[in-house]
């Protein structure tokens, strides 16, 4: 039991840090880093559940694979957007980007 709870706590703290980073950083790349951290925390959670509750259900591992895929993809697309943003406005700072204000 302690194993599971420990793993879960670790994951929770990581998630919190990641969230802090997403909300506080101005740079797009830093925000993406925070997202990666949150995803990682989620993966830790999943594996802990797999290991300590359902080691026979490999669909959980499948889930982890999918989360990993999502991490990679999100990174790729995010960087593509950052590239384009950098080209058009010269920086990727989020503070200046208020074009969507209606």
């Amino acid at each position, binding site marked *: 039991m302690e194993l599971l709870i420990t793993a879960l706590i670790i994951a929770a703290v990581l998630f919190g840090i990641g969230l802090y980073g997403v*909300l*506080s950083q101005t740079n797009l790349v830093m*925000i993406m880093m925070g997202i990666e951290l949150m995803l990682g925390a989620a993966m830790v959670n999943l594996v802990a559940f797999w290991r300590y509750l359902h080691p026979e259900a490999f669909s959980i591992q499948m889930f982890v694979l999918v989360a990993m895929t999502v991490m990679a993809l999100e990174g790729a697309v995010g960087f593509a957007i950052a590239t384009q943003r950098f080209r058009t406005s010269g920086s990727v700072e*989020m*503070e200046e*980007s*208020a074009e*969507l*204000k*209606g």
Partner: protein
Amino acid sequence: MIALLLTILGPLAGSIWITAIRRKIAYAALTGSLVSLTGSVLLFLYMIEGKIITATFAGLPNLPFRLEVTELSAVLALVVSVITTFIFIYAIGYMAEEKGKLRFWSGISLFLGAMQLLVLAGDWILFVMAWEIMGFASYLLIGTWYWKKEAGDASTKAFLMNRVADLGLYVGVFVIILTGGSSQIAAEPMQGISMAGALALLLAVIGKSAQVPFQSWLSAAMAGPTPVSALLHSATMVAAGIILLLKAFPLFSPEALIWVGSVGGVTILLTGATAVFSEDIKRMLAASTSSQLGFMVLAVGAGYPGAAIAHLIAHAFIKSSLFLGAGIFQHEIGSTKYEKLSGAGKKLKLTFSGFALAGLALAGIPPLIGFWSKDAILAAGLQADPAAWYFPAASIGAFFTAIYMGRAFGILWKGKARPDETPQRSLPWMHTGLLTLVAATAVGGLFLDPLVEEAGFSIPKGTLAMISGLIVAVSGLPIGWFAPAPVFKKRIWMFFRDNYPVAGGYNRVAVQPMLALAKGFNAIETSLLQAVFVIGTAFLAIARWLSEGIDRATAYVIDWIGAFNLKIARLSGFTDDKGIVEGIALLVDSVQRLGYYGRKIQSGLVHRELAWSVYGMVFALIIILLTYL
């Protein structure tokens, strides 16, 4: 059977020929009459041999029609057909140059057929039918010259008077049928009829035979042609009343017979007086007819129908001869008034001799036929029960007869004969008819007794009657001959002469009130019609007013409804504009404001938006946790 048919249908066929084909009118009528003569001769011969012929055919339920040839009816039929044939011969000459031939000949043929039917009738209903047809024929014939006012008036008067009297016949026949149970004329009936029935029949006799008080129509009927007067109103139709009495004689009770006799007696005297004082030859002869019929009625009332039959036969021949003679005088001189006729006898000697012979027969000079029959009646009057006054009445009547006949002779013979104005024409026919009948009066006396015997009755005889009759006749004739002028000027004589007009006469008593009544009804009807019109117009006005009112009311209502609808429409439009449109505008406005406020929240900055999503996520998490707990 065939003889029956010949007798009755011969003249009827003649009448139809005349009406339909309208050629050879006179000869057709004569043929019809000859056919009837043949038939009646045959019947007489059958009767002498002893055969009684009857013919029954269908009539009313339980009341079949019957023709019966009794002795009496055979004799009467023969007499009728003989007289009629010779009168027809006379009439051919008389009517040769007169107008109205078609009506005359068809009417008189119809009459002959009806008379034969009446004589030969074996049951009361046929009798009544024949009676009615005869009355109708009389109406037609009296009005042959209908364009003359007096002819039209006379025919109407005759018909109406007869109609009133016929009521008695209907009531009487009704009583007979109810009493006896059948309508057959029986010689020996089971029981007599009541007094009321007998009096009713007597009423019919009074009307048809011109007895008092119904005698005035006969004088008026002289407006018709002389053959009509000769046939109908002396020999046959007026004799129908007597025939009724003869056929109904067995049914009368002795008390009823007293009434009958009384009527006869009164008539003899009153109408005899009229004849004495008359100033027109035909009217004299008419009054004489009433008087002689009174003799016959008296004889029946005395209980001796044989005497009545004898006088019936004799009178038929005599009176027809007298009328034919008067007709020749009228034809030649042009008038029937005594004034004009004085001295005509000298001019028309043959006619006068015939006339005189018949007149003497009427007065009762032997051996002419009239003597025998008058003698029979006087004897009957003597031998009857209330002889007290029958015999004197009859004697006085005979006296009167002699007087007026004598007067007629005197006027006709005495006086200056007018010069010949018109040539004599058609005389041969007329003379033939007249002289044959006169010959019958001359020699008929010999045959009268056997004839009546054949008829089944007996003639009463009496020496006293014979003597008194002779005295009366012989004394009366000279009185009449030497009587004063043709016209009586004194009021009392005129009263006698004009058939005793009481209270203004027929015209004042009967005609004027009826016309006034008719005028009154006309006035009532006209006013009713006007009232109807007024009501109709009033209703029309009401209808118009109503329809206008309804129109206006409907228009008003429709207008009001229309205005109301318009108001509703306007209201609806108003609601639409203000309400719905405003509501929608309000909605739109609120949404816009919501958007405006929503916009303020949005910053466009990524981190802010992320923060918002985190808030939402936390909120959702808390909700989920709460549901799990």
